[in-house]
């Protein structure tokens, strides 16, 4: 008898979900149900502008996947899981070629090969791009492949549906998903051999972010509340250059700096002159001055901190406001139109000013979560990722997988620009064979799951939504969300200190109290988004606890998590190679007292002690309505963690 096809439920139609769906469909061993809030072409991944990294070295600069690996690990301040990152960087060139074969309109060289540009945190031109809408172009080409599979009957799309939670059997194994039809408001269960969460990031926990409206992180948080580990939640990336706005802070892509954009402020406090009338000598190009090597292309955490410092500590924000200039006016209009047309149009559309003629005004905004659901992986005897292991990308709930921005291992404490699109596609593709092996192992037992498991899940969620829709308190949920987001902006952002974090953490219980007094402000029983939103808001409150408590407990400065109190104060003439020598000397016996300048040796000892304590993945688990945070070792077997330096 022919074996039945495996049933895989994928939640999310962004790059991660689509890649996983494509990989699984092409095996012809499984039927895929793809669940998403909105039509897949409208997923958040379309927002990505700048590009996607792969060390193809088309310019003969001597780039290699190993360099890409090094930059990513260093950019992430050594918190990323090294075997996974290495595999991702090694696979990156093939991923770009695959996307190219699928028809992505990547920019090209005069000879017709792929063109690459520079991005932050590297000295190589490693970023492939498709105009100014790389994410959109990648999503579309994957969506097109999925449309083909839909045409062939291998995928069932379930858009306008919301994933509410996993169906867990009595042993805690994931056996399917609870789904909410966002039009009829009907709640039902889907049985599956495995469930993949490719549900994106949680930036909506903050009021000022570059994220799409659907990025509430609710699905991952729900997994956490069902027992999955949530890792490195406190590492939130703040993008240095966003455009001020009321409904959203739109991103000004890093590519603006990659193509020569310069960041500056007037040297005189409160200078209100037209920027074009401010002579060169009276401008302070603070990134170029402080970081002569990387200049405007220092990694995001560094750039955001410097902008913050210039604006709040030195009071040099433009006209006294919290903004700095990002200037492209020294480049020709033709060049700008060709290389950056799309993103410059966005700026013009939303501010009325033309960046080709006048410097843009920008400020940092919440952008990305390095943390997410903890996932497993398996290596072979050579330390490479075992391609068919069912453990790859599995969360700590058996049968429940995570990929894309919803996972946690690829970017450490700070993500490099153009590495996220890569990690989304990489994880989606990489996990496919493992998910199928897992499904093959469990497919028999899937049939034996008692129907009560599904009935119970359904009745729990039906009951929960019924009571939500009857809530009749005084708090408007949308307003409460805004207030929560503003609290997070004010207290858990670029510069962190324990007093403020403690206050912030305690204030979350006030939000929980206010949540109990929420009113379901929409009474329609058709296509009513408010009950869902209230449920997501509950998740966002839980997630804000993970982020804030993680930040409070982590007493160090690493990547995007900046606590000045714990800055190890690297001596300005320190060279990171000294640390490698220091480690070598240690390994061979003793470090001689005069081998290094004393201040350097002291610094290296501080650095080492700090790493022993804090170079750990933080793991949050849901206990008694609170995140219980513990720390797990990071696999640093391939590259010795060392101090970062970009000047």
């Amino acid at each position, binding site marked *: 008898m022919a074996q039945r096809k495996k049933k895989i439920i994928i939640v999310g139609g962004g790059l991660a979900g689509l890649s996983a769906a494509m990989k699984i469909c092409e095996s012809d061993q499984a039927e895929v149900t793809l669940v998403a809030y*909105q039509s897949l072409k409208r997923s958040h991944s379309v927002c990505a502008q700048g590009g996607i990294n792969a060390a193809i070295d088309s310019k003969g600069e001597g780039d290699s996947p190993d360099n890409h690996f090094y930059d990513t690990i260093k950019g992430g301040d050594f918190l990323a899981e090294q075997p996974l990152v290495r595999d991702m960087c090694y696979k990156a060139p093939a991923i770009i070629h695959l996307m190219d074969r699928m028809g992505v309109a990547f920019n090209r060289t005069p000879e017709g090969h792929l063109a690459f540009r520079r991005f932050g945190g590297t000295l190589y031109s490693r970023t492939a791009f498709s105009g100014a809408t790389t994410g959109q172009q990648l999503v*579309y080409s994957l969506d097109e492949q999925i449309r083909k599979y839909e045409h062939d009957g291998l995928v069932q799309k379930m858009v306008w549906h919301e994933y509410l939670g996993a169906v867990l059997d009595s042993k805690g194994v994931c056996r399917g998903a609870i789904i909410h039809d966002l039009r009829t408001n009907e709640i039902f269960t889907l049985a599956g051999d495995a469930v993949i969460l490719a549900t994106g990031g949680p930036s909506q926990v903050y009021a000022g972010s570059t994220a799409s409206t659907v990025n509430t992180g609710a699905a991952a948080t729900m997994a956490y509340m069902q027992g999955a580990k949530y890792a490195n939640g406190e590492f939130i990336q703040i993008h240095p250059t966003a455009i001020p706005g009321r409904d959203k802070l739109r991103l000004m892509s890093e590519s603006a700096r990659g193509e020569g954009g310069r960041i500056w402020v007037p040297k005189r406090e409160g200078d209100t002159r037209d920027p074009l009338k401010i002579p060169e000598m009276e401008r302070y190009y603070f990134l170029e001055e402080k970081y002569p090597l990387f200049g405007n292309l220092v990694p995001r955490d560094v750039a955001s901190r410097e902008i913050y410092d210039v604006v709040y500590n030195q009071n040099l924000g433009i006209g006294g406001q919290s903004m700095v200039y990002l200037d492209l006016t020294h480049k020709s209009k033709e060049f700008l139109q060709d290389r950056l047309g799309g993103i410059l149009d966005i700026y013009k559309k939303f501010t009325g000013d033309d960046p080709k003629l006048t410097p843009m005004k920008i400020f940092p905004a919440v952008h990305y979560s390095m943390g997410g659901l903890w996932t497993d992986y398996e290596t072979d005897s050579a330390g490479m990722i075992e391609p068919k292991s069912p453990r790859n990308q599995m969360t700590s709930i058996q049968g429940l997988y995570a990929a894309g921005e919803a996972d946690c291992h690829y970017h450490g404490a700070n993500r490099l620009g153009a590495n996220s699109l890569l990690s989304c596609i990489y994880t989606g593709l990489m996990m496919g064979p493992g998910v199928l092996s897992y499904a093959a192992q469990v497919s028999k037992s899937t049939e034996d799951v008692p129907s009560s498991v599904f009935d119970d899940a359904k009745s729990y969620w039906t009951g929960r939504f019924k009571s939500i829709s009857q809530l009749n308190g005084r708090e408007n949920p949308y*307003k409460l969300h805004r207030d929560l987001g503003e609290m997070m902006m004010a207290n858990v952002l670029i510069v962190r200190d324990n007093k403020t974090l403690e206050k912030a953490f305690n204030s979350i219980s006030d939000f929980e109290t206010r949540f109990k007094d929420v009113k379901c402000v929409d009474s329609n029983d058709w296509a009513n988004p408010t009950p869902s939103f209230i449920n997501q808001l509950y998740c966002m409150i839980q997630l804000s606890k993970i982020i804030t408590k993680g930040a409070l407990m982590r007493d160090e400065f690493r990547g995007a998590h900046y606590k000045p109190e714990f800055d190890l104060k690297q001596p300005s003439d320190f060279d990171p190679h000294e640390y490698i020598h220091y480690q070598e000397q240690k390994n061979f016996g003793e470090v001689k007292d005069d081998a290094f300048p004393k201040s350097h040796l002291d610094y290296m000892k501080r650095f080492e002690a700090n790493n022993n304590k804090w170079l750990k993945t933080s793991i949050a688990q849901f206990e008694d309505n609170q995140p219980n945070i513990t720390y797990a070792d990071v696999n640093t077997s391939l590259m010795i963690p060392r101090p970062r330096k970009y000047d």
Partner: protein
Amino acid sequence: MSQKTIKLKIKRQDNPRSKPYWQEFEIPYQPLSNVISCLQDIQKSPATANELGVNPVIWDCSCLEEVCGSCTMIINGRVRQACTALVDQIESPIVLEPMSKFPVVRDLMVDRNRMFRALKKVKAWVDIDGSQDLGEGPIMADSVRATRYTLSECMTCGCCLEACPQYTKDNSFLGAAAFSQVRLFNLHPTGAMHADERLEEVMGKGGIADCGNAQACVEACPKNIPLTDSIADISRQTSLKLLKDLLLK
């Protein structure tokens, strides 16, 4: 001192079968507002100019930066995206209506599934042998890439169809967006291997021959996609194919 406000007149509909009705809203003015932030303000205190506690207005949105196509609606009589409709740049009162060529789901939210079905029908994809590593993609001139990129920015928003006199709720016209996608895929070296299959799909009922060349579509497209060029090009490709099919018979 009277506070500056924003006035909105919104066409509402509770479900696909119920009758539409109008409501008026007035909210405090704030700098940098767009239609989305107005709708969000209404969500935060849902009340019309003369009635407290109405249901918030429902609309579709996601990216808020005009790349996802979700928030398309008719604003002051013109079809466009709500996220790029800046309050300072449009007339008050702001009149919002759902698109008229698609079934209303609720209020300003419509069902554009027909557009995705059209993409399936015209086989808007490149057939590849699989995702295994087969090396580099085809060499392509950057000028071809540039043309393809312009076409590929189509975000399936439906503005072109809303504006098109030929596209109605009850016919099967495929519409400019789908024709333009045929051109996109026929321009790709690998996609071109299946060009005929795509052309066949636009040669029947509801196909390219039904286009009246009114050119309303191209004016409505927020992404400046050269739709009339695409239509002309696909007409040419289909004519050639007809001729070829005749000769080879």
